[in-house]
């Protein structure tokens, strides 16, 4: 096949590109320029988006022996990912921009362009496995290295996208990928992993939002209210700094009546009210999802597991699908579940699909 290898400049995508070559594909390396004003050098734990990263990707392509180009997707990325990220925070939700980028950029804008230019597939360094099922459909499974598994952020891909995707690292653990990079002479072998959101330069999410949101609603201050007493126990300068389940940095002025630590239970961006309460009130036993995306056939009901945030635990669940809505009953209650995050639905190791969490129901509240 003719394959575009998306190369961020990191170790994973470099090894993935090398493996695609070894698998006999005709590979072209492409670095996606996502930032409108790329910084020259890396800072913090970001793994892409600087000129230095672009150069790292270019050098990896040289070593692998494949052509290399930079594709400018900065406008699309800004519209589809960055603005969505701000809108979601403005609405009091907690978005996952990596899923959004996979859905709208890497396996949409890039894949579309690649297909139109005569390529057959896009290869990335994501940790996930693709297999052909007995029904002939492509199935996506968790990576063998569960600690690095990235099937959660790929849960938005549909069958058509999966058919044109390659994830050459899904059967390998990260230390082995680093050793392989070194053996292949790739200079990025010991480059640190990226963790933060790529477009938030220094990893300071709250600071970034404070600057970008300007005078939009979540930037307004408000009260912090205790759910058990209804009392105002503190104040804050903007709801963007909070996420459901957060414990740190609440700076409550009034100690809790029951002496227990307080967690963020709810965020109301318009009034600016942040509700806090004891840990037991965080537990959720039902999640309603919207905007479902299915990897294969649309199911009516799934008895499997769901993952409710990146690197989060698996929860046993019964999922009922009706049209554009997904109702998820959690057999193991979950904590710290924020609207805006994705609920990714698994049948064993296989990804069935995903939905965006619209609302949650606390344990003990009426159905």
């Amino acid at each position, binding site marked *: 096949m003719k394959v575009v290898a998306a190369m961020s400049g990191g170790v994973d995508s470099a090894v993935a590109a090398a493996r695609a070559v070894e698998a006999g594909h005709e590979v072209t390396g492409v670095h996606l320029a996502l930032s409108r004003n790329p910084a020259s050098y890396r800072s913090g734990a970001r793994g892409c988006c600087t000129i230095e990263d672009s150069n790292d990707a*270019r050098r990896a392509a040289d070593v692998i022996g494949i052509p290399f*180009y930079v594709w400018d997707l900065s406008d699309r990325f800004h519209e589809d990912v960055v603005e969505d990220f701000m809108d979601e925070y403005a609405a009091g939700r907690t978005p996952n921009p990596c899923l959004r980028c996979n859905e709208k950029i890497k396996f949409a804008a890039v894949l579309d362009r690649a297909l*139109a*230019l005569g390529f057959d597939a896009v290869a990335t360094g994501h940790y996930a496995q693709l297999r052909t099922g007995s029904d002939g459909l492509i199935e996506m499974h968790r990576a063998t290295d569960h600690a690095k598994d990235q099937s959660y952020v790929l849960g938005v891909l549909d069958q058509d996208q999966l058919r044109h995707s390659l994830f050459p690292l899904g059967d390998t653990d990260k230390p082995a990928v680093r050793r392989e990079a070194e053996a292949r002479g790739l200079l990025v072998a010991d480059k640190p992993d990226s963790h933060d959101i790529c477009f938030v330069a220094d990893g300071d999410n709250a600071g970034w939002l404070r600057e970008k949101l300007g005078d939009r609603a979540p930037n307004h201050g408000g009260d912090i209210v205790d759910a058990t007493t209804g009392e105002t126990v503190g104040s804050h300068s903007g709801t963007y700094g909070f996420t459901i389940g957060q414990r740190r940095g609440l700076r409550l002025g009034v100690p809790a009546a029951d002496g227990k630590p307080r967690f963020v239970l709810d965020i109301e961006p318009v009034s600016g009210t942040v509700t806090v309460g004891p840990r037991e009130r965080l537990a959720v036993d039902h999640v309603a999802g919207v905007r479902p995306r299915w990897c294969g056939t649309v199911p009516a009901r799934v008895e499997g597991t769901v993952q409710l945030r990146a690197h989060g635990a698996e929860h046993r669940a019964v999922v009922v699908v009706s049209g554009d809505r997904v109702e998820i009953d959690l057999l193991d209650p979950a904590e710290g579940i924020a609207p805006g995050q994705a609920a990714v639905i698994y049948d064993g190791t296989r990804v069935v699909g995903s939905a965006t969490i619209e609302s949650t129901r606390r344990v003990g509240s009426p159905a």
Partner: protein
Amino acid sequence: MTQPLVYLDHAATTPMLPAAVEAMTRQLTGVGNASSLHASGRGARRVVEESRETIAGVIGARPGDVVFTSGGTESDNLALKGIFWARRAEDPRRTRILSTAIEHHAVLDPLHWLAESDGAEVELLPVSTQGVLDVGSLRDAVSRDPGSVALISVMWANNEVGSLQPVDEVVAIAAEHGIPVHTDAVQALGQVPVDFAASGVDALTFTGHKVGGPYGVGALVVRRDLSVSALVHGGGQERDIRSGTLDVPAIASLAAAVEESVKHQHEHAARVAALRDDLVRRVIEVVPDAHLHGAPAGPQRLPGNAHLGFPGCEGDSLLMLLDARGIECSTGSACSAGVPQPSHVLLAMGCDADQARHSLRFSLGHTTTPADIDALVEAIGPVVERARAAKAR
């Protein structure tokens, strides 16, 4: 790669001429610092001075006018900063620099730096839709306050769209007020007649690798009586305005390339222009809405330049698809961070960002053959079709 390489990016860099390779290799095994006083040093110095005389002879300058540098960018920096500083030191009212909106970044970036860091008032004058300086706006800008103009810098020929600039008229306007003129002739030398003295400019930039010489060497030709402040201080090797041990093999090679390319300029231009005209005509036959940017083919355009717009395409896609077929060209746009920006030249010519992005520059040179044109004409149809499909997504 099995197919022969079709290299149509000579304006980026052109293969070295055999005479230049021979001159360089002859010097590489020798020893001698041109500043040393012994026989080896004198031998090296002799090669440098003979090279200087050769170059001066073929470009209409005196040997003392030729200052060797590391290439076009250094020469432009030396001219702009060096002349600006010297002129302002003579008269602090001289704070303005007049130039054009279509200069190479080697001119624009030093000008921006001078404006931001050193109090220069830089005016980038507009160009026509064909990419030619609007002389009237230059005249107006000068006459507004001639005494405050430190320097005028106008390129001889544009590197992207190949339009020749009205250097004669610029010199005439400047001469009325005794304002020095610099020209970046990097793209012009060897392609069109360039005579330093006859042109009347005070300083002229050229570089080796665009005329069939080596990378990393060039010159600023600058009138001996014009004072220029130094940028690089050290041993003062070049007229005290440029320091650094002279690169004898590169200078010898540069002289050979300049001599050869200027000597054969006329027949080179005629041959390459015919190939270029053939390219433009046949590409437009295949892609009817493709169109030439810049001045029409003729005396006002570099002979080897074909800058074509392909509506509905991304230049990047076209470049990649042609590259995959062994055909090499340029989008002509500046590439900071590898993130392609729409060309400032096309924007200055009135193109919108979309038009600026759908363009390719093919530049022909001394190794270009009719077979190269045939290969491009054969490839361009399917490539444009595919790039259009990609853009439409």
